[in-house]
């Protein structure tokens, strides 16, 4: 395990031994320094795609992404062709589901696009979908949004709004084949509780880019579980800002990156409000040649955000040679009056010694591999809280492992 663990009380970043070949794990902490999070982006956030130059690949936010595989989402050549995705919303009673035009006031309230593809999505969608859970409505069944790829290209926008003290679980399930850029806004009223599970279970050729913006109200709780298995390129930006004190956000992620796949998760938590919490845990397994996972974890604690408590962690398990992980946690602190802040990143191999140890106890190789990967993901799978998704996920992990053994 190569490990970089930082905590501001240590005063400086500390890194463990050299990372294994084929992965990078770097971490940085900026204390009351220039805003690295903001300056690392090549343009300020905007809803207008023309405010962003076409990326050439050397920009900080694009340097890990294979632009040539984005099928034109980044340079304006990808045109929506009407058979991109089929979106079906299945909601329990009491929930309002609307299709609205671009001028609806609820759109874009949770945050502006931060890169060209997100802005392209915002500039190009024709209709948006708004799901509303009225205040004080506590749902006992999840809201299920199926996004089924139809083989074409699409842009979209989805808003999920919870009124004060409402509670809901939302599952957004991406399957099939598509080239899709679509952003999702989560608006949480005061005291609301929202769990969102976004599953990227795409076919092999799909390309999916999305920005998830959560605006978390006073004393509200937001839990995001991002599960990425499929696709040729998946590039997601889960982002959180706070609208009131006492709010908390948990961002969990699992990815299983196979041969040739590029899966990129770029997180940002903006502690812009005092006495809020955030906890980020992303775990990924990789196998096969040119499997590439990227994890960027940016946390900004603004000067006014006293009493912040934040931790972020990324763990990667490299199962075979030829895979690559880039893991970059960044913690930027503008006030010392906080409860806690830290981050950790580690990339380890399922190595020959572990395999030998398990096999020396009679456990066959494929069983040993399964034991390790299941154990690795177990704590996160338990966080999902939606039984059929948990079962599907475990089945999916088994399936991926079968493929690796074959």
């Amino acid at each position: 395990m190569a490990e970089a663990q930082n905590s501001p009380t240590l005063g400086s970043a500390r890194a463990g031994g050299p990372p294994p070949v084929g992965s990078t794990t770097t971490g940085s902490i900026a204390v009351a320094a220039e805003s690295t999070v903001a300056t690392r982006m090549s343009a300020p956030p905007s809803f207008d795609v023309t405010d962003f130059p076409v990326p050439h690949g050397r920009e900080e936010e694009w340097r890990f992404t294979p632009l040539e595989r984005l099928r034109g989402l980044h340079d304006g050549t990808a045109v929506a062709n009407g058979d991109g995705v089929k979106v079906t919303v299945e909601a329990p009673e009491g929930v309002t589901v609307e299709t609205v035009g671009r001028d609806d006031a609820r759109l874009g309230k949770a945050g502006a696009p931060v890169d060209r593809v997100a802005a392209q999505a915002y500039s190009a969608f024709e209709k948006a979908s708004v799901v509303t859970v009225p205040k004080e409505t506590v749902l006992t069944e999840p809201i299920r949004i199926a996004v089924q790829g139809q083989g074409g290209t699409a842009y979209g926008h989805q808003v999920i709004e919870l009124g004060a003290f409402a509670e809901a679980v939302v599952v957004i399930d991406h399957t099939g084949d598509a080239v899709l850029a679509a952003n999702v806004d989560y608006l949480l009223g005061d005291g609301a509780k929202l769990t969102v599970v976004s599953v990227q279970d795409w076919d092999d050729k799909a390309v999916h880019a999305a920005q998830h913006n959560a605006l978390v109200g006073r004393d509200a709780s937001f839990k995001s579980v991002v599960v990425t298995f499929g696709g040729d390129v998946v590039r997601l930006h889960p982002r959180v800002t706070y609208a009131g004190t006492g709010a908390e956000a948990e961002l969990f992620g699992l990815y299983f990156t196979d041969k040739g796949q590029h899966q990129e998760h770029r997180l940002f938590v903006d502690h812009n409000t005092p006495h809020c919490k955030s906890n980020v845990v992303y775990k990924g397994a990789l196998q096969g040649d040119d499997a590439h996972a990227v994890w960027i974890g940016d946390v900004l604690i603004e000067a006014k955000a006293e009493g912040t408590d934040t931790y972020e962690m990324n763990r990667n398990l490299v199962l075979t040679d030829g895979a690559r992980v880039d893991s970059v946690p960044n913690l930027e602190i503008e006030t010392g009056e906080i409860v806690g802040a830290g981050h950790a990143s580690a990339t380890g191999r399922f190595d020959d010694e572990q395999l030998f140890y398990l096999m020396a106890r009679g456990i066959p190789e494929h069983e040993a591999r399964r034991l390790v990967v299941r154990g690795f993901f177990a704590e996160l799978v338990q966080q999902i809280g939606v039984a059929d998704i948990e079962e599907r996920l475990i089945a999916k992990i088994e399936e991926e492992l079968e493929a690796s053994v074959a």
Partner: protein
Amino acid sequence: MATLEIRDLHVTVEADNATKEILKGVDLTVKQGETHAIMGPNGSGKSTLAYSLAGHPKYTITGGTVTLDGEDVLEMSVDERARAGLFLAMQYPVEVPGVSVSNFLRTSATAIRGEAPKLRTWVKEVKETMERLHMDPSFAERNVNEGFSGGEKKRHEILQLELLKPKIAILDETDSGLDVDALRIVSEGVNRVRESGEVGTMLITHYTRILRYIKPDHVHVFAGGRIVESGGPELADKLENEGYEAYVKGGASA
């Protein structure tokens, strides 16, 4: 009666772009119920013998045979050897993050026994064995070897030995790094298994200290990649008094 037969075993290892012969013709027969102490100086190849028998991929067998009850051990994969009845208690047990001890033990016992142990009796069996080894119950929920102290790792190895009940147990420097109390606890575990009369034990050690707790039937001096002298327990007394000097000087270079 289970018998492990090692005949003229030659083993090489790749190091610094060169092939080095470590084992240079080892002959040894271990029968069920017997305890053989293999003693030798550092670098004599004792651990190489242990890992070669277990099938570690780092070592290449270049000559000789190893059979267990007539079956060719060298043809078997690592897990097949374990299921055939070989057990290696490792000097440096490996950390397996994300896999709990209880899950690991049950998976292993299922593989070795050929069927999943009945849950109720299994839980009791594990609990009692852990108690005898002075292991806290919380141990079962920790990840395999992760953050274990040296003594905890060795106790965990002996816990597996007791639960898996092999035909042949190879204990590779199980005594190294243990204080006297831990050494006693671990030795008692080994003796419980030996008293069953169903295991042949190869006790690989650098020191004679453990032999106060585990009495061997045979003592072998290992030097320069082979057994250079064999005898009864009295040979250990001789080593205790005289050390390995005589064997190392005799041209058996490490």
